[in-house]
């Protein structure tokens, strides 16, 4: 899901940088009120966990591979704004040091896996918990939210890639950036996430939340 440089044209990557920048500012304003200094190590730990989690590639037999992101787990422990920042830090290091995801497309990747993946999953988690927050329900809601969040992120990624042939072309009429249309990008990316990587994310989120409820119950926001 890490979009490399060259797959998005300037309208798309520029537009997504322009959306991401004020959201980072808003996140920092929000955390100024809500994030205690004592929670900073947890933010650093969460960002590193997300970084490492994305190195565990799971295969679709004979096809491509993908990974979980930890976005929803982080949002449950740190709150969505801190999770968005933590994911953004992990994605920035991945792009700069390891060439995983591009520089021009960093805003897009932070919006997809960071913002959309975090907030869509976190909203579902809160909805599912309404009124009843037994441990069992929290674990199931966390898994479902993990599955949903990563798939929202994947769908956005597929759409951003798939609209490229529609909005820009070289003088000879051929695509200038990502050459695959929506009819290719959406099935190609969603197939893996709906069938395999979404469940990897769900399992990871549920197991991690179940462990935290037992070992560090104070860390789980109900």
């Amino acid at each position, binding site marked *: 899901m890490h979009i490399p440089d*060259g797959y998005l*044209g300037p309208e798309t990557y520029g537009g997504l940088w322009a959306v991401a920048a004020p959201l980072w500012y808003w996140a920092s304003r929000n955390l*100024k009120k809500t994030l205690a200094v004592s929670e900073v190590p947890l933010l650093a730990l969460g960002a590193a966990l997300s970084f490492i989690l994305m190195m565990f*590639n799971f295969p679709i037999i*004979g096809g491509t591979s*993908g990974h979980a992101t930890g976005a929803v787990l982080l949002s449950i422990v740190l709150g969505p704004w801190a999770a968005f920042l933590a994911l953004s*830090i992990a994605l920035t290091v991945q792009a700069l040091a390891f060439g995983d995801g591009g520089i021009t497309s960093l805003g897009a990747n932070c919006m997809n896996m960071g913002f959309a993946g975090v907030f869509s999953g976190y909203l579902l988690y809160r909805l599912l918990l309404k009124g009843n927050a037994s441990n069992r329900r929290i674990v199931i809601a966390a898994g479902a939210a993990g599955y949903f969040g990563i798939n929202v992120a994947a769908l956005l990624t597929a759409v951003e890639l798939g609209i490229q042939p529609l909005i820009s072309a*070289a003088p000879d009429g051929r695509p200038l950036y990502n050459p695959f249309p929506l009819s290719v990008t959406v099935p190609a990316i969603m197939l893996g996430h709906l069938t395999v990587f979404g469940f990897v994310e769900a399992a990871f989120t549920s197991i991690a939340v179940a462990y935290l409820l037992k070992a560090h119950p104070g860390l789980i926001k109900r």
Partner: protein
Amino acid sequence: MKNKKLWLILLMLIILTPFGLILPKLFGAGGAWGEWGAQEIQKIIGYAPLGLKRLNELWRAPFSGYGVRGTGELSGYLISALIGSVLVVVIGFLVGRMVARRDKKR
């Protein structure tokens, strides 16, 4: 350190990262969809889109593809996991300190 156990879990996961490289190979799976370089795209569709080619090599990452020059594939992956975690933790602390609420000293 607070939450020492959680940091140990992170360390354990770092040590296990080479499995994230081995597992897809075991099942004959390639990399992630849509993360190919310009040359690979050329092989797939017969040409490399001009804009894609121009932007694709914009940045040469020092540990491109989670590899470290002079080390094997698996050890490079493991070293990358270590380097990356240290970088993310350091930046996480810096950013966290910058944005966190200042508690009044008691």
